[in-house]
């Protein structure tokens, strides 16, 4: 099996070259967001207002981390189940140039269709390995929606975050 080292932002070309089953070590800046943050991002799009972060070529990580202990950048930080974001992801793919999503569990057809159409990839992180993944996070900054606590949007700097391409930009998937 391939292990590919990638650094964000991701180009359309890079995203299109990834295949379901590829193992990836991802470095660079990624953005956190789960249920409530997605709801708010789409509400901003509806109102024609700017988003708190430019998602062009970017990767969103579906995560609500534990609070950081003093001196640590972040607490435990594994993926949450992705299907709850399926109502919102197609909008971010179509309108914001989002190139990647990180979560766990299969996506529904409208998300996969949007990934194929606009060119994006869905990575599976290892669910239930939040302590291991936290070690890959070097920096964490609050970006938006502080009232949401763990559901706020954070800018993360990650190094060699272990991922698997679960569904690629051709719609090929490891889920059955």
């Amino acid at each position, binding site marked *: 099996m391939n292990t590919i080292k990638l650094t964000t932002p991701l180009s359309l070309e890079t995203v299109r070259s990834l295949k379901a089953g590829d193992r990836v070590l991802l470095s660079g800046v990624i953005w956190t967001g789960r249920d409530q943050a997605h709801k708010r991002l789409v509400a901003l799009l509806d109102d024609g207002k700017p988003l708190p972060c430019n998602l062009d070529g970017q990767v969103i990580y579906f995560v609500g981390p534990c609070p950081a202990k003093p001196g640590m950048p972040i607490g435990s930080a594994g993926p949450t189940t992705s299907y709850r974001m399926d109502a919102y992801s197609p909008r971010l793919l179509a309108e914001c140039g989002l190139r990647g999503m990180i979560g766990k569990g299969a996506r529904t057809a409208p998300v996969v269709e949007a990934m194929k159409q606009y060119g994006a990839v869905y990575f599976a992180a290892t669910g239930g390995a939040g302590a291991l993944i936290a070690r890959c996070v070097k920096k964490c900054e609050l970006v938006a929606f502080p009232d949401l606590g763990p559901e706020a949007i954070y800018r993360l700097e990650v190094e060699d975050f272990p991922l*698997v391409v679960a569904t690629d930009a051709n719609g090929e998937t490891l889920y059955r």
Partner: protein
Amino acid sequence: MSDYRIVSFEAVAQAVSDLCGKAACDLPPDVLDRLRQMEARETSELGRDFFAQYLENARIAREERMPLCQDTGFAVCFVELGDRVRFDRGTIYEAISEGVARGYREHYLRKSIVNDPLFDRKNTQDNTPPVIHLELVPGEKLHITLAPKGGGSENMSAIRMLKPSDGRQGVVDFAVETLRKAGGNPCPPTVVGMGIGGTFEKAAFLAKKALLRKTGDPNPDPRYAELEAEILEKINATGVGPQGLGGSVTTLAVHIEFFPCHIASLPVAINVNCHAARHAEVEL
């Protein structure tokens, strides 16, 4: 009144607080053993890679006191309370609730509870209220088991009121269908708790309680032990695999608890737990 054993509110609160930290960071030995056993049965290379990550994650969590999973869960407590136990102040419910709030704060655990399921959905900020299952037992015993429950796996749980004529096969089919449909969502390989019989809510309670059993220990009734083994084998034959990305181990263990039931009924509840099957207990 001298027959009563007085337990301090503070002792209960502190014990529960300690349990919160322990459950979040120390994967119980029975789960670790089971992971190692089942790793040997995983045929997919990617699947074995996930098993290696789970074991490494457990080591980091234990050594660095970093929660195994960011979803440090709903604080579900099973309490055996002796009928001769009294508290110096407050109630057992208040003492446990205080312990949960303290534990989630002091151990830097994620607060995952919202105050209202439908309208407000405002975070309560201290992970209370806990869910408390209280059982009155004779004597002076006070035993608390904390089983923090993550939302991702809880969401894949299911209950069905089968017909008695559906029988054994109906139970097997329901379980396999539920875990196949759950796919990678509940962080497989899962631990599956099943409650068979009783009423609607009794079956759900038994399914949750079944998760507390030492992982992989069979039901003492050989008929139910055989059913557990068959369901485990059939779930693993689905090929869902670790993280739902394909493999031969979708579930680590199936635990069934059963109870007498109505002549018209065959309730079956399935409570799904992730591979980080957390539980910790204390005797006070």
